[in-house]
C-alpha cells in the first residue's frame, strides 16, 4: 500500500516489517518518533530507557537472547552510548541489531552539530544513510540482513530533514523471524583482552568484506546524466538528503554517485565514477568524510573548499556555491521583503511553565546557574537570563562540584545546578554521587515536571508510567537523594515564589550539600487542571512592569498597562505575586 509517511514513522515501519521485536531508546530530537511509532505495533516490545547507553546495552542483551533488536538516539546520544557500541563491534550479534542515530545539521533542537559518521568509522560499524522515507523503510530491512550476515550492529543514520519529512512509501507485511537460540560463546561475547585480541582481526576482515559489498550493491548507485547534455561533464558524489538537493538544483545535467552506505566507503566504484567525469564534486553536509576518502584515493575533488562545513544544505545553497562550476553561471537569489524589521520569535517557556517561578527566583537572587539540557535551557533567554552554562546531559550536577571546589565558599554561596527529572535520571545521578562522595557544599535543584518535556512528553523512571502510559516502577527522588547521603532534601512548589526564595536562600547559606526538588507537572500535560485565567484591573494597574520581569508570553503592555491574553493564560499566578498593587484578578474561562 502507498502511504505518505514521516521518515521516522517509515523507520518504525521498517522495524516492524523486518521482524524486530525489542526496542529500547532514549528520546532525542530528531529521533524520538521512531520509538513512538514502533510502540504502536503490538508485535514489538518497546521501552524508554534512562539513557542511550542503557538502551544500547539492553538492545545488545535482547540480541544475545536471539531476537532482532533496536535502539534509537540523537547524535549526541551516541556519545553516551559510544562505550557499548565500540565493543559491540567486536562481539557482533546473535539477533540483528539496528541502531538509529539522527543528526541535526542546522541545530534545530541541539547543542552541537557533530557528524555521527565519525562514530561509524571509529567503531568500525557499517552505516547506512537513507535520503527519504521510502529509502528509510528499505534500508532498515537491509540493515537487519547485513547485521546478521556480517555479524555486526548496523547504524542507520537519519538527519532532521529525512526524519521529519513525509514522503511516499510502499509498505508490506511483517517478516516472520524466529528467535535464535542463545548459545554460550565465551571467545565471542566475553571481551577481556585475550578474547578481544582475536576479535579485532575479525572486525578488520568484516570491514574489508563490507567494502567489497559496497563496490557492487544496489544501495550505492550511479546515475549518469542525460546523453543530450552538453558542456563539461560534472559528477557529484553525495548521500542523504543532499542527494535530493543535488537533483533539485541541477536535474539531469550532472551525473551522480549516490552513496547509501557511508561506512565503509567503496574504492573502485568511486575511482570508476571519477574517471568518467571531467569535474568531480563531493556534496555532503557537515564534515568532509567522503571528500577525505576521495583525496586519500588521490582524486582531484571539489568539496569543502567551496561548500560550507557549518549548517544545513538546501537546493539554493548548492546553486549558490556550485552553479559557477556546473553551469558556468553565477546564481543570484531574487527575493522580496517588507522594509520593516521583523521582530524575532524565538521559542519561549510556555505560559504557566513551572520552570518560570524557579528561574525568576534564581534571577532575583543573582545566582550563578549551571544549567542542563531540556525546556528549562530557555531560562537563559531574556528577560530571565538565569543561566551561566549549558553543556550536555547531566553536566550541571558534575560541573557545580568542580566549580565550587575550585572557587570555595565564594562560589558555594551563590551557585546552583538545575536539571530536569528526566535528565537527572539520564546522567545526573552519577554527578550527585560525586558531590555526596567528595563533599562540596553544592546546591542541586531538580526541576521535576513529571515528564520529559522538550522532546514532546515521554515517560521516564520518575513518572510511574511506562511508554504505553501503563503503571510502571517509580523512582522516589527524595529517597534516592537521601540514600546517597544528602541530609538536606526539600521540595518546593515553583508556583509559590516566597517558598522558592526561602529554599534557595537557605540552601545556599548552609554549609552542606543539598537538593531542592522544584515539583509541579508540565503545564502542557493533558491531565493537568488549570486555574481560570487572570485579567488585569486597568484601574488598579500602575504600569510598573513588575509582571514583565518573568517573560510570560501571555502578558504584554497595552496603552501603558499590563494586558493578559486569556487564550494563553492558565492562571498560574506568578504575575499576581509580583504585582505591588493587586491589579490581577481571576476570571472564569470564556467558552
Amino acid at each position, binding site marked *: 500500500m*502507498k502511504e*505518505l509517511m*514521516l521518515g521516522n514513522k517509515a523507520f518504525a515501519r521498517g522495524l516492524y516489517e523486518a521482524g524486530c521485536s525489542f526496542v529500547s531508546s532514549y528520546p532525542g*530530537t*530528531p529521533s*524520538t*518518533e521512531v520509538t513512538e511509532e514502533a510502540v504502536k505495533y503490538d508485535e514489538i516490545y518497546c521501552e524508554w530507557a534512562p539513557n542511550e547507553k542503557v538502551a544500547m546495552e539492553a538492545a545488545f542483551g535482547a540480541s544475545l537472547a536471539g531476537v532482532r533488536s533496536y535502539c534509537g538516539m540523537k547524535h549526541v546520544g551516541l556519545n553516551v552510548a559510544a562505550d557499548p557500541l565500540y565493543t559491540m563491534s567486536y562481539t557482533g550479534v546473535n539477533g540483528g541489531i539496528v541502531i538509529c542515530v539522527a543528526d541535526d545539521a542546522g541545530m*534545530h*533542537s541541539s547543542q552541537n552539530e557533530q557528524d555521527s559518521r565519525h562514530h561509524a568509522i571509529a567503531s568500525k560499524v557499517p552505516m547506512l544513510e537513507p535520503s*527519504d522515507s521510502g529509502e528509510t523503510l528499505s534500508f532498515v530491512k537491509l540493515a537487519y540482513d547485513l547485521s546478521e550476515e556480517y555479524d555486526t550492529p548496523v547504524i542507520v543514520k537519519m538527519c532532521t*530533514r*529525512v526524519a*521529519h*519529512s*513525509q*514522503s*511516499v512509501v510502499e509498505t508490506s507485511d511483517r517478516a516472520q523471524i524466529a528467535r535464535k537460540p542463545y548459545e554460550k560463546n565465551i571467545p565471542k561475547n566475553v571481551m577481556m583482552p585475550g578474547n578481544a585480541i582475536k576479535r579485532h582481526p575479525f572486525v578488520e576482515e568484516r570491514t574489508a568484506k563490507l567494502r567489497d559489498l559496497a563496490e557492487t550493491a544496489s544501495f550505492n548507485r550511479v546515475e549518469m546524466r542525460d546523453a543530450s547534455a552538453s558542456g563539461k561533464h560534472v559528477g557529484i558524489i553525495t548521500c542523504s*538528503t543532499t542527494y*535530493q*538537493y543535488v*537533483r*533539485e538544483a541541477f536535474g539531469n545535467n550532472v551525473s551522480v554517485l549516490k552513496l547509501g552506505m557511508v561506512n565503509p566507503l567503496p574504492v573502485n566504484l568511486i575511482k570508476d565514477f571519477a574517471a568518467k567525469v571531467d569535474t568531480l564534486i563531493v556534496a555532503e553536509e557537515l564534515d568532509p568524510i567522503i571528500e577525505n576518502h576521495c583525496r586519500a584515493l588521490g582524486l582531484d575533488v571539489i568539496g569543502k573548499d567551496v561548500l560550507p562545513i557549518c549548517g544545513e544544505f*538546501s*537546493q*539554493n*545553497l548548492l546553486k549558490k556555491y556550485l552553479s559557477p562550476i556546473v553551469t558556468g553561471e553565477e546564481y543570484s*537569489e*531574487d*527575493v*522580496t*521583503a*517588507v*522594509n*520593516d*524589521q*521583523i*521582530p*524575532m*520569535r*524565538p*521559542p*519561549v*517557556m*510556555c505560559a504557566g511553565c513551572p520552570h518560570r517561578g524557579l528561574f525568576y527566583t534564581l534571577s532575583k537572587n543573582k545566582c550563578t546557574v549551571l544549567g542542563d539540557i531540556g*525546556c528549562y535551557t*530557555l531560562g537563559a*533567554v*531574556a*528577560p530571565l537570563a538565569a543561566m551561566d552554562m549549558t553543556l550536555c546531559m547531566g553536566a550541571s550536577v558534575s560541573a557545580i562540584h568542580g566549580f565550587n571546589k575550585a572557587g570555595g565558599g565564594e562560589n558555594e554561596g551563590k551557585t546552583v545546578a538545575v536539571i530536569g527529572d528526566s535528565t537527572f535520571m539520564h546522567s545526573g545521578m552519577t554527578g550527585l554521587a560525586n558531590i555526596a562522595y567528595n563533599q562540596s557544599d553544592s546546591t542541586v535543584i531538580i526541576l521535576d515536571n513529571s515528564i520529559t518535556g*522538550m*522532546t*514532546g512528553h515521554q515517560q521516564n523512571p520518575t513518572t510511574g508510567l511506562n511508554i504505553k502510559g501503563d503503571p510502571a516502577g517509580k523512582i522516589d527522588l527524595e529517597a534516592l537523594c537521601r540514600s546517597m547521603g544528602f541530609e538536606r532534601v526539600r521540595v518546593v512548589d515553583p508556583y509559590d515564589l516566597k517558598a522558592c526564595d526561602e529554599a534557595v536562600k537557605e540552601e545556599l547559606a548552609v554549609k552542606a550539600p543539598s537538593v531542592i526538588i522544584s515539583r509541579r507537572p508540565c503545564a502542557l500535560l493533558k491531565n493537568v487542571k488549570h486555574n481560570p485565567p487572570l485579567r488585569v484591573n486597568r484601574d488598579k494597574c500602575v504600569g510598573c*512592569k513588575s509582571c*514583565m520581569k518573568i*517573560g510570560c*508570553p501571555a*502578558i*504584554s*503592555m497595552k496603552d501603558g498597562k499590563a494586558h493578559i491574553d486569556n*487564550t494563553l493564560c492558565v492562571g498560574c499566578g506568578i504575575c499576581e505575586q509580583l504585582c505591588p498593587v493587586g491589579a490581577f484578578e481571576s476570571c472564569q474561562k470564556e467558552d
Partner: protein
Amino acid sequence: MSTKNVMIVGVGGQGSLLASKLLGRLLLDEGYDVKVSEVHGMSQRGGSVVTYVRYGEHVYSPVIDKGEADVIVSFELLEAARWLPFLKKDGQIVTNIQQIDPMPVITGAMEYPTELVDKMKATGAKVDALDCLALAEEAGSAKAVNIVLMGRLSHYFDMPEEAWMKAMEAIVPAKFLEMNKKAFELGKNA
C-alpha cells in the same frame, strides 16, 4: 508539471500540523508525488514554525527555499511578513490577520510592525487576508483556524471540493467533522 510549493507558517502550538496532514492526504489522493517537511522539538515552544508542502510528478527536495513558494499560508500576520522572502514573484499569500506578540514585542524591545498587509501588497505579492479566528469561532471552535485557512487555500488549488471533503473525512475525527466542514465553507466563502 513542475513541482508546486506551499508553505504553512505560524507560531508553535497553532495547529499547523493538521493543515499539512490534510494537504498531504489531498495531494496524494489526487495522484501526485508529495513531500511534507515539518518542525519538531524546541521551535514548537511558541517559536516561529514552518511546514513545507511540495507536490508534482516527482519531488526531490523536502524543503522550499527563498523565492520558491507558490503559496504561503500563514496562521499569524507577522509570520506572513517574516516568510515573505520565500514567496515567488507573483506568488499568493493567504493569511490570518490575528496578531500574536513575540517576546521582543512583549518585553518592549521592539514594536509589532503596523499595516503589514498593505506593506506586503506593496512588494507585488498577492495577499488574501482574513479574520480566521472569528470565522473559526463562528464555526464552533477557535481551534478550527487551520481548516478555515484550508478552505480559503482551496481557491488557489484546481481541485474539486469533493476531494477536499474526502481528505478531511480521512484526517479529522468524526465528532469534529461537521464543525470542520462548516469552518472550511466559511473560509472558502469569506
